[in-house]
């Protein structure tokens, strides 16, 4: 665990190089937040870069009463939302088409070809379902499930009440469940059926 406060102090005193340690500590989290928000690797890289540069510029404005990560995620979320709104203004066309789906790598190194295809399809279906969620639901689900933030942290990042975070998460899960079912996700059906069978036994 890096000593964030000490690094932030160093950066504020003009040591820009120290900022690299903060980038390294948070790059995966910031990048994944951007990736889930915009669904495109190249855009996610650019947005993550923009978020870090803004964080560096605005570090003096970081009031240390909240965690640095909360401040950084708030800033990153705003960068992503700004981008999505600009993109929406530029094009009224739906964001999702089959051609635009991410080509997702399979994390498991040794599946059979058949399993590999199945895993890739499942991942693509989930990624596509996330992309189809409205921005407000996608944001809250990403902050909770990908970034594993508490309701309180999410409330601070999104300027919401904790109760709203809780209800919005439930609605987001209900929505993504419907999208997945609609997409005819075999694994999803299988998972539910399997558990039903287990319950019956």
């Amino acid at each position, binding site marked *: 665990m890096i000593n964030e406060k000490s690094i932030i102090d160093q950066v504020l005193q003009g040591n820009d190089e120290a900022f690299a340690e903060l980038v390294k500590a948070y790059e995966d989290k910031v990048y994944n937040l951007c990736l889930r928000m915009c669904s495109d690797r190249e855009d996610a890289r650019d947005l993550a870069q923009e978020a870090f540069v803004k964080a560096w510029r605005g570090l003096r404005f970081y009031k240390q009463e909240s965690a640095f990560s909360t401040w950084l995620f708030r800033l990153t979320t705003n960068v992503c939302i700004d981008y999505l709104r600009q993109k929406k203004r530029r094009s009224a066309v739906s964001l999702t088409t089959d051609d635009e789906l991410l080509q997702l790598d399979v994390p498991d190194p040794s599946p059979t070809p058949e399993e590999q295809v199945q895993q890739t399809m499942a991942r693509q279906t989930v990624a596509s379902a996330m992309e189809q969620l409205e921005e407000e639901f996608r944001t809250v689900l*990403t902050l909770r499930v990908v970034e594993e933030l508490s309701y309180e942290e999410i409330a601070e990042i999104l300027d919401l009440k904790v109760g709203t975070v809780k209800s919005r998460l439930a609605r987001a899960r209900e929505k993504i469940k419907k999208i997945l079912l609609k997409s005819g996700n075999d694994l999803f059906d299988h998972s539910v059926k399997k558990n039903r069978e287990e*319950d019956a036994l």
Partner: protein
Amino acid sequence: MKCEEALLLISGHLDHANTIEEEAALQAHLSTCSACRDVLQAFEYADQGIADLQEKAPEDLCDRVMEQISQPKKKKHLRPWLGVVAAALLLVVGVSATVDLQEENIVPQTATVSEAYSVQRSVVQVDADALAQQISRERDAVVAVVREMYYEIETYPCETLEEGGVLYALPDHNAAVLLHETYGCAIYEPNENSDTAYALLVP
């Protein structure tokens, strides 16, 4: 418990956010409702699927960030429409020419554009700058003039001024200097020792 109520608690269960009482009520409901058990399994599946989508950040991300922040800071932050005007002006007079927007002896074909630019610029700036100077004097504070909302200032306490504009109370003198260095905002300071600072946001 109705299934609608259970939905909220199923989601809370996955986040370990339910109280002991809520969790007990949920478990009691789940033991008698197979539909909600399916919902729980489906939510778990979706959560796992989303979590599994995580990837490593691109290897060059850190280098790109460090390269960008090591570049010289922008001296001036034009509003988008001014940028377009300035770009048009540069195209007309040539990139290598020294463009002085306040000069009167600009080549004839650029006169209209440059006049428009100068007039707009002076109308916006004179009022805001005079106001900033006045606030700086009256409150013995450093005042940065900002022309658009920057995320850095939005969380600070603000007051709407009768003269127009919104005044944000900044944490210290350096914050105003940073706005100047980052965005090229004009700053007014009665003396270097003043640690009261504001950002004046003008339309």
